[in-house]
């Protein structure tokens, strides 16, 4: 086999899970681990996809009128409110764009604020706006996102079976390809997990930013349990 096609094969092979390569003794363990891993991941991704298009913190029952930290309760500007100045227009646009816009809310204080009556009307019209906005992400799109996740692992396993006879787990170029992909996806997941989910949900205007004690404790337990379980799976595999 020429080096080029060999490298290509290795990269394709990487897509296939090593589950199909593993021997019989480790198969059951690996299978259980994969099932749990994919289940946790599916739950996490599924809740995110299901929550698409809905304001995350405004519907918290304990704080129906937003929170003291900023003006991020303008999740969706009512359609009939016309911005008067350019600054307001930009602010309104970005407020609409960024669902929990703490970054903007800080910058916002420099802009001329609307009178508080307007704010009141904003928060009163908010439920209907939220309902309307939940349709901006269609069910089809959500199903597409969910299906993409559901099919990739079996597909990878299928490809893995297909190229099984070419597998050499100690071939340097294979090892380099696998290692590079592992490290790269680790970086992507660190970004998404730490910045997008952890920091935003807990501190930067997400659902847990102003949650009550019970919610916070439950969320913290869930967070720690998730880390512990995933670590256990990592050790187990």
């Amino acid at each position: 086999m020429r080096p080029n096609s060999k490298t290509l094969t290795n990269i394709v092979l990487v897509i296939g899970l090593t589950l199909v390569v593993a021997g019989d003794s480790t198969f059951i363990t690996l299978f259980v681990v994969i099932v749990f891993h994919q289940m946790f991941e599916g739950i996490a991704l599924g809740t995110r996809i299901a929550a698409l298009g809905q304001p995350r913190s405004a519907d918290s029952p304990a704080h129906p009128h937003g929170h003291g930290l900023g003006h991020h309760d303008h999740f969706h500007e009512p359609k009939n409110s016309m911005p008067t100045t350019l600054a307001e227009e930009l602010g309104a646009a970005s407020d609409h764009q960024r669902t929990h816009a703490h970054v903007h809310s800080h910058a916002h204080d420099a802009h001329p604020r609307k009178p508080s009556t307007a704010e009141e009307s904003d928060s009163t019209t908010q439920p209907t706006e939220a309902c309307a906005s939940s349709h901006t992400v269609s069910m089809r799109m959500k199903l597409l996102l969910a299906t993409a996740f559901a099919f990739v692992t079996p597909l990878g396993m299928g490809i893995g079976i297909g190229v099984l006879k070419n597998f050499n787990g100690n071939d340097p170029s294979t090892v380099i390809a696998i290692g590079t992909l592992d490290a790269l996806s680790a970086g992507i997941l660190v970004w998404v997990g730490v910045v997008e989910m952890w920091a935003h949900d807990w501190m930067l205007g997400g659902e847990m930013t102003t949650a009550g004690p019970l919610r916070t404790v439950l969320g913290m337990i869930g967070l720690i349990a998730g880390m512990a379980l995933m670590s256990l799976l990592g050790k187990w595999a």
Partner: protein
Amino acid sequence: MFANECLGELAFESTASAILMAGLFLSFLVEYLGIRLVQWHGAKSAAKSVESPGGAARHVSHASPEMVNIAVLEAGVIFHSLREYP
């Protein structure tokens, strides 16, 4: 994975960390550019709907920063699902 003895001595010890940082930056870049693009589109259509009230409402827009977040998240999850287990 880079500790595999078949690779021999690595020229750079923290290769994996460097690649991890590359992935970090890559996903940041994709998400950042996506959000800037979406915001730019939003501002443009907002300006349009100011010109003609009752026209195309910007809420109809399919893309939102949330959507960009989810797309990057899903891409990351899928990408690491491709090859996860040792």
